[in-house]
């Protein structure tokens, strides 16, 4: 096994074990989106949402991305705590691959997220979601990539700001507009033209559109193409920025 792979497996194992031990993280991470599903989902069933598919096919992709957005964006908190204990430095002074330090963590985040996403989709099916199986699987791939990229960026940001007091507000300042302008809750096509135009400058919007296209089985569409390109660009950007930070971790 190459050092990068074995190092990544080692780091992944360490953090995955820690996650499995913290039952609170598992429980509340899953509970929040379920609340949306139960208390917000039924409000939409009778409304014309100006998009393909029924209201569940529009809501569930949005909820999945929202779960990913808020889960992954705050991943950096863990790094701030570890920084204070000197754990990151201790690892950086060993020969371990810098990229593995990032990938191992990010992989844990993505996997935890997919686990929660599967639970959410199963619950949604129980409530009335009907969507093509392939589209749902494709949706998981999208959100896994999205979570991985976002978690990597969150780690990079955590290194820059260094205290939880700065990190929290900084993340909120980024996630709130991302959520509102990407049409996560309701399709942007419902809004006035200026809002729809503005939202095209928000990269997440393309992911949301692609996810919704997947959930109605429209695979060979522009939405899907742009969504895929956005996801890949996001991953490339995040891994580059994240690894750079782990390599130099300015202090």
């Amino acid at each position, binding site marked *: 096994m190459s050092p990068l792979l074995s190092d990544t497996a080692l780091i992944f194992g360490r953090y995955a074990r820690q996650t499995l031990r913290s039952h609170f993280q598992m429980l509340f991470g899953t509970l929040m989106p379920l609340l949306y599903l139960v208390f917000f989902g039924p409000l939409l069933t009778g409304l014309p949402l100006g998009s393909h598919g029924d209201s569940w096919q529009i809501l569930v992709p949005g909820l999945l991305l929202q779960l990913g957005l808020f889960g992954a964006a705050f991943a950096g908190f863990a790094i701030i705590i570890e920084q204070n*204990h000197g754990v990151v430095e201790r690892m950086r*002074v060993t*020969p371990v691959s810098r990229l593995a330090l990032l990938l191992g963590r990010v992989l844990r985040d993505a996997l935890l997220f997919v686990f929660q996403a599967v639970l959410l989709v199963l619950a949604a099916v129980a409530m009335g979601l009907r969507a093509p199986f392939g589209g749902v699987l494709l949706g998981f791939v999208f959100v896994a990539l999205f979570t991985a990229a976002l978690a990597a960026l969150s780690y990079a940001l955590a290194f820059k700001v260094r205290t939880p007091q700065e990190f929290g507000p900084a993340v909120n300042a980024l996630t709130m507009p991302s959520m509102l302008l990407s049409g996560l809750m309701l399709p942007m096509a419902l809004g006035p033209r200026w809002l729809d135009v503005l939202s095209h400058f928000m990269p997440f919007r393309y992911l949301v559109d692609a996810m919704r296209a997947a959930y109605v089985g429209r695979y060979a569409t522009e939405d899907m193409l742009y969504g895929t390109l956005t996801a890949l660009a996001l991953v490339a950007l995040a891994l580059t920025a994240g690894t750079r930070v782990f390599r130099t971790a300015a202090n």
Partner: protein
Amino acid sequence: MPLISTAGLSRTFTSKQGPVEAVRGIDLRVHPGEILGLLGPNGAGKTTTLRMLTTLLPPTGGAATVAGHDLFADPAGVRARIGYVAQSGGVDPSLTVREELATQGRLYRLGRAEAAARAEELAAELDFTALLDRKTTALSGGQRRRLDIAMGLTHRPPLLFLDEPTTGLDPASRAALWDLIRRLRADHGTTVVLTTHYLDEADALADRLVVVDEGRIVAEGTPAELKLRHAGSAEAALQEAFLAITGRGPAPQEEAPVAV
């Protein structure tokens, strides 16, 4: 051949107020088997120097060879041959001593079984076998410090860096740690570079001292040489020499607890 050799090693940070020269050109030689003490007032550049020598912080100028590898061209080679124990240690409070030692072994590319065996061995050598299955938060200050040092010794490095190893320890733990450092040198020939604020510690433990102030080396020599040169007598307190060299004493809250 010196184990550390630097020429004009420097680091400039950029800040909103403009560039800050934390380290302004350090020429340092450390010989195999030496215990070298790095002294200086707060903000003198001790930790920055240590972080550069341990590959954690890229220097902005100069040249350095550490443990036979070029610091600039081959940081990975340096990492494989040095141990570093930061002031904050570096163990996760939610994990057990055994887990952290085993992970450290794997980070140094030992196999699973090898890493587990090395954890046992280190615990025996540093006298905390009974604590192996405790959470790291359950350890006392002195025990924690021994664990931190064990982590840095995982791969049997010929060169060990310790950043303020005895800060916050009670006198008995400090004395035990001094013994441990001397034993490392006696048993394994380990070269040790340590920073400290405690002048009695520097006096008792180090073969040679390097005093850093405002990012430069302002004095170096054995404790006796520094006392003779700067305080007029080899019998003087190191504190007097230190004051004469830097024009300042150590910060008052950093008075050392008495250790033997």
